[in-house]
């Protein structure tokens, strides 16, 4: 079953198992889907809580462990992410994805030697996934190595049914490197696949704003419509209207 077929956004009725009375069964799968939904809405805190609840239901759900670590990274809590990866590695020893997300945590915490070591370790395992390639790309991007783009392409090529998420993550990485044109190509695909993801619209808006495109405002407003009162989107919208230092200087 396609993973995104079970995603619910607002008015759409949640799919998945249903109990008596038509209410969805609140099992690990349900909370996993909720967490993904919140992540795609850019609400990392709620996504983290839902991953925890998924693990409360079933502590052996690997995606929930990885999701927790990723949300901690998104929230800027890198040390906690490392601690939690170690905890997950006790249950899933030498898992390449866990090693990869630990490399990302190290990389974001500006500990590049450790990041490279963990990334090397993760890439040397068998059956590596798109997440491992993206982690590799992130570590290499920090070192300003052009081979990072090959890693992103590799990740996208093996994305499978997670393609929209892979593209979204790839675009975010490319934006870090200021490759806005390439990022926008991916983000246009993402918003078509996930039209109700506030995070995708927000990233696309940022990308368009960086390129000076006039539709940036409408895109950011779209993300605000999907997730009202989102401070980051509001700030981006304000910045979008204001323009840069030079544009303000020479504005008539």
């Amino acid at each position, binding site marked *: 079953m396609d993973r995104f077929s079970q995603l619910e956004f607002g008015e759409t009725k949640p799919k998945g198992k249903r109990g008596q009375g038509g209410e969805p069964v609140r099992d690990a799968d349900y909370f996993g889907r909720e967490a993904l939904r919140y992540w795609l809405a850019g609400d990392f805190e709620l996504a*983290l809580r839902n991953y*925890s609840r998924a*693990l*409360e239901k*079933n*502590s*052996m759900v*690997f995606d929930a462990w990885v999701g*927790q*670590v990723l949300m*901690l990274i998104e929230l*800027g*809590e*890198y*040390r*906690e992410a490392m*601690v*939690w990866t170690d*905890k997950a590695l*006790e*249950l*899933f*020893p*030498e*898992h390449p994805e866990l090693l990869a997300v630990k490399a990302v945590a190290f990389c974001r*915490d*500006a*500990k*590049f*030697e450790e990041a490279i070591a963990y990334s090397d370790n993760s890439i040397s395992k068998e059956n590596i996934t798109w997440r491992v390639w993206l982690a590799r790309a992130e570590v290499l991007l920090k070192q300003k190595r052009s081979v990072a783009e090959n890693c992103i392409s590799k990740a996208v090529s093996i994305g499978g049914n997670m393609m929209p998420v892979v593209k979204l993550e790839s675009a975010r990485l490319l934006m870090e490197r200021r490759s806005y044109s390439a990022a926008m190509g991916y983000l246009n695909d993402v918003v078509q696949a996930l039209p109700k993801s506030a995070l995708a619209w927000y990233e696309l808006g940022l990308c368009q704003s960086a390129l000076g495109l006039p539709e940036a405002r409408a895109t950011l407003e779209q993300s605000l419509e999907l997730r009202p009162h989102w401070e980051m989107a509001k700030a981006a919208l304000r910045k979008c209207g204001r323009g840069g230092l030079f544009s303000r200087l020479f504005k008539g």
Partner: protein
Amino acid sequence: MRCPRCEFENMPGQTKCFKCGSVLEGPKEINVHPPRMAGWKRPIRSVRRWIRGTTGIPNLKIEIPTPGKRTFKCFGGLILSIVPGLAHLLDRRFKEIRWYFLAWLILLLGSLFLYATTTGLLLAGLAVGLHTWIAVHHTVIRELKEFGPRLFAMIFLMILIGILYWSVQRVFLADITTGYTTLTIPYYNVESGDCLLARYSHAQEHPLPRGSLTLARMRSVGVYQGRAREVGGFGPPMIVQIIGLPGEKLEIIEGTFFIDGQLLDTERYPVPQWLRTREISVKIPEDSYFVSTEYNVDRRGRGLDERTILAACLIRSEDISARAFMRWLPVGKRGFLE
């Protein structure tokens, strides 16, 4: 028992997968709630991350030492080090720091000798630095081996000792202040630009004796459209000389002061330049003094009217804050006024 990760069929009773090592059954009590970062740590970590990212120092660790035996030992040594060298003296290790102690003593005395000057302030700062060095030399340097904690301890201690010096100065020299004068009075061997030491407590008596050099707030006098005017606000405190006491009649005739018709000694009560161009006669109100000070007025005071002069020279007793007792700077003229 099938492994959830690699699908390998394991023997019953196995806790971990024989093939991939994954845990086959989740422990009964497994904590699934990740640790969270305290909000106050966020800016600290950001700064450290920025330092790591920009300097390339891989593992910069500036950790606050956790309380323990070592910390308490350090702490005890630091408390004793409020008196520089005391901790070393008690440990019979004074010889280790005797030169530092001597240098600290010289700097401290030097800063006191040049009190109220920028050189004195610099020497006091150096004394704080040496005091800190003596303090950390006792236990901190020995106990803390890493650069980060050592640096943190030194900076922290230097701030504490700096506050201590400031507090000591505020407590022990609370009654003393300094002020500069624009007057030249041959009797007191005082010239314009000299710095005098004054005591707040000596200004409490009323009325103050004639001729006293006091620290007072003076009204500003400005020149507007060629005529001097009292501006109205108070300038910074300065040393002035009390000439007329409350209730007396003061006159300035031909460049000399007269009090109730009696001529005052010009050596002891010189008339400032800006008051010599005019003849003034005034009855000093109660609770006020007529004081003498030099003003930089263009054209030697021409254009000054009597009202402006009186507004500048008649001051209320509450505007006098301290009474000078010592010539302080220049050092060559240092001595008591009487």
